[in-house]
């Protein structure tokens, strides 16, 4: 019989990446007791080990807020949240100074941080001159920064529980009062009672196998959704991929090695993209848009693709890619209801990729945006949660509720037979990962995938069984991935237009009349429902400009 322990704290943080670490340290500084749990080992878990740089906005370095906002709005195609853009930009320098005071080392020249301009700034892309200047800049930290932040947490007195998976939030009388979960290795069930809870457990995408963070299981999004939280941005994707079997390969990709910076392949600016027939592929648009062109070449049967340098040498560098990663980095997630990253659920806050600020909107426009978005929202969520906890009364948690949550946690382990979570995940990934489902989208294909996902949700997931502690974790992750798949498909079906990295073959143009809006998902009467929330009037593009001026990027077949 598994052991059971109960912990009590003021603030509980779920997930220990950039956002969670900031939340924990800031909450602790307010005098609150803080427990931070992470499925892995904090500093090696999630996406943190692969982050190489962070955006810093600082007027003292000559940065201009309006120019930065224009960059995000044009590439994010106007569904970026300019309020959150301003918050993150304006807070960013203070968070940079925090990192530095904790001992994170930045690349410097003559004592001054070395700022790097947007890596696409000087590339000879055909549509380059149609876009506003790329003004955002990043600073690079030296390897080892996650370990330094971990040390700072320990120094602050944050209690870290590594290799611990949360399976449900504990919700009582309409308020989140902690979470229940288990240790990874021996399934010790732990009840974590907290006055305030922060979810900073990363995003939820379907990334191709072979990408070092492909296993994004959307735990945070799903446990919040199940508690009644509102989710946004699920239709947007962020193309990052690595897979040598795919016929096409993207014009840009990130090369990773453990513990080191993400870096763009050198010399891309001198290369062109060539299809299997030897013809140049026009890479339209900016930043991540170009992936759609590459993917479309594969879609119409002209892959494999190569890069060709000025001497005519062809290159396939590193692990060439599949389709886009199905995640909106720094855009999708749990909707905030105020500037402290509170959610619509009492006692629940969110930060980082778990928080759906729509920071980048329909397409990722900068470098280092996600790390700084995580730092800023993490700090704000930590302070917000600390304030909430300092005023909140302690709640006695109902024993029957805990018994029910514990039963749910252990259910797959207690079934004698059923479906292996590994097999279910394989079916799910085979349904979702093909480029023609969530990257080049069309109603009939998405409906087909959704019907498979619904079948998995209703018939297979409740019958998953786990043969040991490891498979119990997998079973809960698979459950979350299935719900996340449903979110991505429903949001993508609902948005009947193309925008940014949401490309629909059946609606290949933006529809500014209907879709200067966000897609919101929430549960109603036990069903996932999609709603539209229109963006504020003052954020709409200047409609006196032509469509081509508002949207310099052309979609295939548009």
């Amino acid at each position, binding site marked *: 019989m598994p052991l059971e322990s109960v912990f009590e704290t003021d603030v509980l943080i779920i997930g220990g990446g950039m956002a969670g670490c900031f939340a924990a340290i800031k909450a602790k500084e307010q005098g609150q007791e803080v427990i931070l749990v992470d499925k892995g080992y904090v500093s090696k878990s999630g996406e943190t080990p692969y982050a190489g740089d962070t955006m810093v906005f600082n007027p003292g370095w000559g940065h201009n807020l309006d120019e930065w906002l224009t960059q995000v709005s044009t590439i994010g195609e106007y569904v970026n949240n300019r309020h959150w853009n301003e918050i993150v930009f304006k807070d960013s320098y203070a968070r940079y100074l925090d990192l530095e005071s904790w001992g994170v080392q930045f690349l410097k020249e003559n004592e001054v941080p070395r700022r790097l301009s947007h890596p696409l700034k000087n590339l000879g892309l055909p549509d380059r001159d149609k876009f506003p200047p790329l003004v955002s800049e990043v600073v690079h930290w030296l390897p080892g920064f996650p370990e330094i932040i971990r040390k700072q947490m320990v120094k602050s007195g944050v209690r870290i529980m590594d290799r611990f998976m949360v399976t449900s939030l504990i919700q009582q009388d309409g308020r989140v009062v902690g979470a229940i979960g288990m240790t990874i290795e021996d399934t010790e069930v732990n009840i974590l009672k907290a006055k305030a809870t922060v979810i900073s457990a990363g995003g939820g995408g379907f990334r191709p196998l072979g990408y*070092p963070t492909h296993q994004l299981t959307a735990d945070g999004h799903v446990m919040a959704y199940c508690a009644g939280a509102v989710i946004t941005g699920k239709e947007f994707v962020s193309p990052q991929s690595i897979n040598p*079997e795919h016929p096409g390969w993207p014009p840009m990709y990130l090369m990773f090695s453990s*513990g080191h910076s993400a870096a763009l392949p050198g010399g891309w600016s001198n290369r062109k993209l060539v299809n299997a027939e030897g013809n140049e592929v026009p890479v339209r648009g900016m930043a991540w848009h170009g992936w759609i062109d590459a993917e479309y070449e594969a879609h119409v049967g002209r892959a494999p693709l190569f890069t060709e340098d000025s001497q005519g040498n062809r290159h396939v560098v590193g692990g060439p890619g599949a389709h886009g990663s199905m995640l909106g980095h720094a855009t999708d997630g749990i909707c905030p209801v105020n500037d402290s990253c509170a959610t619509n659920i009492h006692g629940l806050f969110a930060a980082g990729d778990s928080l759906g600020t729509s920071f980048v909107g329909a397409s990722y426009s900068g470098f280092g945006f996600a790390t700084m978005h995580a730092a800023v929202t993490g700090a704000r969520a930590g302070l917000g949660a600390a304030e909430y906890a300092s005023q909140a009364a302690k709640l006695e948690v109902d024993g029957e509720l805990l018994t029910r949550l514990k039963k749910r946690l252990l259910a797959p382990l207690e079934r004698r037979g059923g479906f292996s979570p590994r097999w279910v995940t394989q079916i799910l990934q085979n349904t979702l990962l093909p480029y023609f489902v969530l990257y080049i989208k069309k109603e009939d294909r998405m409906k087909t995938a959704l019907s498979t996902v619904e079948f998995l949700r209703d018939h297979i997931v409740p019958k998953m069984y786990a043969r040991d502690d490891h498979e119990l974790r997998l079973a809960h992750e698979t459950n979350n991935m299935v719900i996340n798949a449903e979110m991505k498909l429903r949001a993508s079906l609902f948005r009947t237009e193309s925008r940014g990295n949401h490309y629909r073959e059946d609606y290949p143009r933006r529809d500014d009349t209907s879709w200067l809006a966000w897609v919101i998902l929430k549960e109603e009467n036990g069903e996932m429902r999609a709603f539209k929330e229109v963006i504020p009037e003052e954020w709409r593009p200047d409609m006196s400009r032509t469509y081509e001026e508002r949207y310099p990027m052309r979609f295939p077949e548009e």
Partner: protein
Amino acid sequence: MAIDTIDDVLCNGCGICVRNCPMDVIRMDKKNGKAYIKYPEDCMICGVCLECPQKAIHLLPGYKLPTLLGWG
């Protein structure tokens, strides 16, 4: 480049790889105090285990992924 073997002779049982593996692929053999690969099929090819101070962990050469997913 998925995890392939852990060299029994080189492994000193420090447990860093067990702790660091985000996918819980590696566990400690309580009998001999050495790390071993318990769930190889869940390796996501991140390479975090290569921080082994004993250089006891070896990866498979090349990328080996299921073709169906590979054509994603």
